[in-house]
């Protein structure tokens, strides 16, 4: 078995040696050209804000505890933040190369992009690819930024955190202003409605002089009691009813002995009818008066309702205006737990690992090639193989030129 392996290796030595030499050489070339990577790390605590306004308060259903911190991650990765970092640090021109080759030759060739927009897009993309954010828990983020210089990584991470907070504050500011604007429109709307209702009430009171003036100032919802009181104080009902009863008694008494054509009887009948008409007429007036009172109270209730809503919106608006200033700054809720720092040791490339890996890969590749070629070998090269496969004895293995 070992003889076979050694024979194969000897036979295909070039296929073994070639990758073993080439891969480490490629690796060396790569190591010369590749940019080193240094990482800067920071840790932030992104508390969920709690506004004074109930309507601005974030309410979620279910157990989406990480939503807030995921939104923070999205903001960190947003073009709005990264664009500002790139602009403020002039990163639209790539930073000088720090590869071994670039340092050896001295000249650091920076490919200058003519189109500024395009350069900016590339820079944003490159920045995003070098930024890494880990969620440590539902409120804490670990941010890592890798660059080809340790101090550059630290500087850019500091800048990133600054612009991230700025953008987040702007987002909150926009949100508050938008809501305040909405409330302001609502206040104006309710103000107009309030005015309309008040005018309608005054007009109504003017048209109906019977309504007591103090009723518009103080609204009393006890409508039936009020009506009863008014009716009881001035009502002629009992007198008229009593008189009709007396007249009917008299009429009955006369009917027992007088004929239907009796003049007295006729007069009493006329009196009774007059009183009944009076009673009916008075009833109608009372009903009209009650209807007016009910309508008046309706108008008062509507006015009161609009006034209450107006006051509620005004109160909400005041709260929002308060939280727009200092309270908003407090409620941003981002605390930097660990300031951006840097590790002077680069994280990539690992020279020893890269060389060892390339050597190992070269060996694996070479051995695989040797094995594959031996499998695919279409001819006999050894007497042993020939005898084994054909079952015919090999009489001689002549190596010299024939």
């Amino acid at each position, binding site marked *: 078995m070992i003889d076979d392996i050694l024979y194969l290796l000897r036979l295909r030595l070039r296929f073994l040696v070639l990758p073993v030499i080439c891969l480490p050489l490629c690796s060396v070339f790569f190591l010369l050209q590749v940019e080193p990577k240094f990482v800067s790390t920071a840790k932030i605590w992104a508390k969920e804000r709690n506004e004074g306004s109930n309507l601005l308060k974030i309410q979620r259903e279910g157990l989406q505890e990480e939503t807030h911190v995921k939104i923070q991650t999205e903001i960190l990765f947003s073009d709005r933040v990264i664009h500002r970092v790139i602009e403020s640090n002039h990163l639209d021109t790539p930073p000088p190369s720090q590869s071994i080759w670039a340092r050896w030759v001295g000249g650091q060739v920076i490919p200058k992009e003519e189109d500024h927009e395009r350069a900016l897009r590339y820079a944003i993309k490159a920045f995003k690819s070098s930024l890494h954010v880990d969620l440590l828990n539902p409120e804490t983020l670990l941010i890592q930024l890798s660059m080809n210089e340790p101090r550059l990584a630290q500087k850019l991470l500091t800048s990133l955190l600054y612009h991230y907070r700025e953008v987040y504050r702007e987002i909150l500011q926009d949100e508050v202003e938008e809501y305040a604007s909405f409330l302001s429109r609502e206040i104006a709307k309710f103000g107009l409605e309030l005015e309309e209702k008040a005018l309608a009430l005054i007009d109504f009171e003017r048209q109906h002089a019977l309504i007591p003036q103090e009723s518009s100032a103080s609204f009393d919802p006890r409508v039936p009691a009020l009506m009863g009181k008014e009716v009881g104080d001035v009502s002629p009902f009992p007198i008229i009813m009593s008189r009709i009863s007396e007249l009917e008694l008299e009429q009955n008494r006369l009917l027992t002995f007088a004929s239907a054509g009796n003049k007295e009887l006729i007069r009493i009948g006329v009196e009774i009818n007059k009183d009944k008409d009076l009673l009916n007429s008075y009833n109608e007036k009372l009903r009209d008066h009650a209807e007016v009172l009910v309508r008046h109270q309706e108008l008062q209730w509507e006015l009161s309702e609009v006034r209450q809503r107006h006051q509620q919106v005004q109160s909400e608006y005041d709260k929002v205006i308060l939280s727009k200033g200092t309270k908003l700054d407090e409620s941003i809720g981002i605390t930097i737990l660990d300031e951006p720092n840097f590790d002077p040791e680069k994280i990539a490339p690992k020279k020893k690992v890269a060389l060892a890996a390339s050597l190992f890969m070269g060996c694996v590749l070479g051995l695989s090639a040797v094995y594959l070629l031996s499998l695919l070998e*279409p*001819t*006999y*090269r*050894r*007497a042993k193989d*020939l*005898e084994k*496969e*054909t079952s*015919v*004895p*090999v*009489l*001689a*293995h*002549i*190596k*010299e*030129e*024939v």
Partner: protein
Amino acid sequence: MSLQRLRSELSVIASQTKSRKVMVATPITDSVTTNFCAKLVAGWEDPVELIESDGVLDGIQFPLVSEVTVPVLLLVIAGDSRREDVKEAIGYLKKKGLPIAGTVLLERKGVLD
């Protein structure tokens, strides 16, 4: 194995036949047969009669087949003769009823380099 050993082997094989002849062939016709035979006979004091043949798979001529059975020595050129040709040639010879004396593996210069 050297040529000398091969000669003695062939002498033994030939002595077991009536004709004392050995046919030398390759799977596919090749000029190496002539050279090999010449090299083998040269300096051989009591040589067996070698019959040079064309390639087994190229329509081998068996002039003596009808008269007497001749063992065949198959020449296999290392790094040149294809495995399936060698196997096919052996199968063909067996099918024709010819005894196979054995094979010789030749390393022709330049083939393995």
